[in-house]
């Protein structure tokens, strides 16, 4: 056990459990980039306790939601009875909305291109600046991308009725 004297710390204690030997002391940076001993803390307990607490909170919330809200289950699947409108799962409703405008451009080209640009993003944006204020154009483009996604999903979910016609949910439109 390293013995701790006030303000003093035995760095290389003579310890019977030690399975390594000190070969040499050299000057240089610590192999862990950008980290110095002063601004680090032990993973256990500091990080793991936090992760544990966050996990308990998430599990409690999930349990609470699951106790009060039941997963949907409609009638048995029926090939002859097409619901109108038939809707994809909510995260694909933006896509379905685009398909409604144009199958090829909306359903294939725009989503395909977006996905490609998303994956290639780190290779397209090659400036070293990380702060959003130093890469304004990209930040705006990405934010618009997110907003458009959300808006299309909301439209698809709540504002589309029979035949994919535009409906206003609070005027008697049905909500999926």
């Amino acid at each position, binding site marked *: 056990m*390293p013995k701790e004297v006030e303000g003093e710390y035995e760095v290389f204690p003579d310890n019977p459990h030690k399975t390594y030997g000190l070969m040499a002391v050299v000057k240089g940076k610590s192999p*862990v*980039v*950008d*980290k110095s*001993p002063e*601004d*680090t*803390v*032990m*993973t*256990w*307990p*500091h*990080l*793991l306790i*936090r*992760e544990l607490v966050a*996990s308990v909170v*998430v*599990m409690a919330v*999930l*349990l609470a*939601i*699951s*106790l009060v*809200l039941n*997963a*949907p*289950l*409609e*009638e*048995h*699947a*029926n*090939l002859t*009875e097409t619901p109108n409108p*038939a*809707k*994809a*799962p909510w995260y*694909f409703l933006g896509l*379905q909305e685009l*398909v409604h405008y144009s199958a090829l451009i909306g*359903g*294939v080209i725009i989503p*395909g291109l977006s*996905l490609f640009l*998303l*994956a290639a*993003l*780190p290779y397209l*944006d090659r400036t*070293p*600046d*990380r*702060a*959003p204020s130093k*890469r304004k154009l990209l*930040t705006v483009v990405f934010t618009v991308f997110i907003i458009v996604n959300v808006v299309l999903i909301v439209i698809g979910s709540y504002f589309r009725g029979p035949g994919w016609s535009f409906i206003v949910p609070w005027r008697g439109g049905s909500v999926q």
Partner: protein
Amino acid sequence: MTEIIRLLSRFITGNRVWKSVFRAESPVTERGQSESIFHNVWLHIYPVKVRKDALRFTYTFCLGGVSFLLFLLLIITGVPLMFYYVPSVEQAYGSMKDLEFVVSYGLLLRNMHRWAAHAMVITVFLHMARVFYTGSYKSPREFNWVVGVFLLALTLGLSFTGYLLPWDQLAFWAITVGTSIASYVPWLGPSFKYVLIGGNEVGQGALLRFYVLHTVVLPLAAVLMMAAHFWRIRKDGGISKPL
């Protein structure tokens, strides 16, 4: 108070049994704390020490970690669901009814699986946004962003394949609509759709394929990608510094 905690943890961790299980000294000393991490197969992906500012909640909002936790919860709730679920067009819907009315806590199990799945889609998306706005995809983390995009696709794929399994009207028509979008891809689309649903229409072929994708292929792929994702975080020097 801290003294009580200290004594308690010494009592729990300072004995031979603890030591034999964890191969580590009691984690009340820094040495014990280090050993608890790097002598543990599950924890050794963590560094022994982390940067203080990496702990800041308002930097990551725990979104990556919560996505991972939800994934674990989906596996934990998914396995017992598999005990009751039969992927046949005659029996699938009945399995759902059994879960609701016959199986103890069956409905709760199904609810948790369903809501965790929706939540995971949202947290993964928000996690991606966090990574973007903090510019954390920049060198040396470019490739981990790409791994992340694959994880996003896998998350959507897992959610989509699971959507069909209850075999109710909602499931059937959502997958019919969803897979028909795939067929708009010129040239490749129609055959991709045919292979995906095992026929021209959503039926027994589609149900079995989606079941296998949902319970075996995609979870396995996600586990492998997550392993790569976490490994890269470690190799890239931990998470990026707060701005």
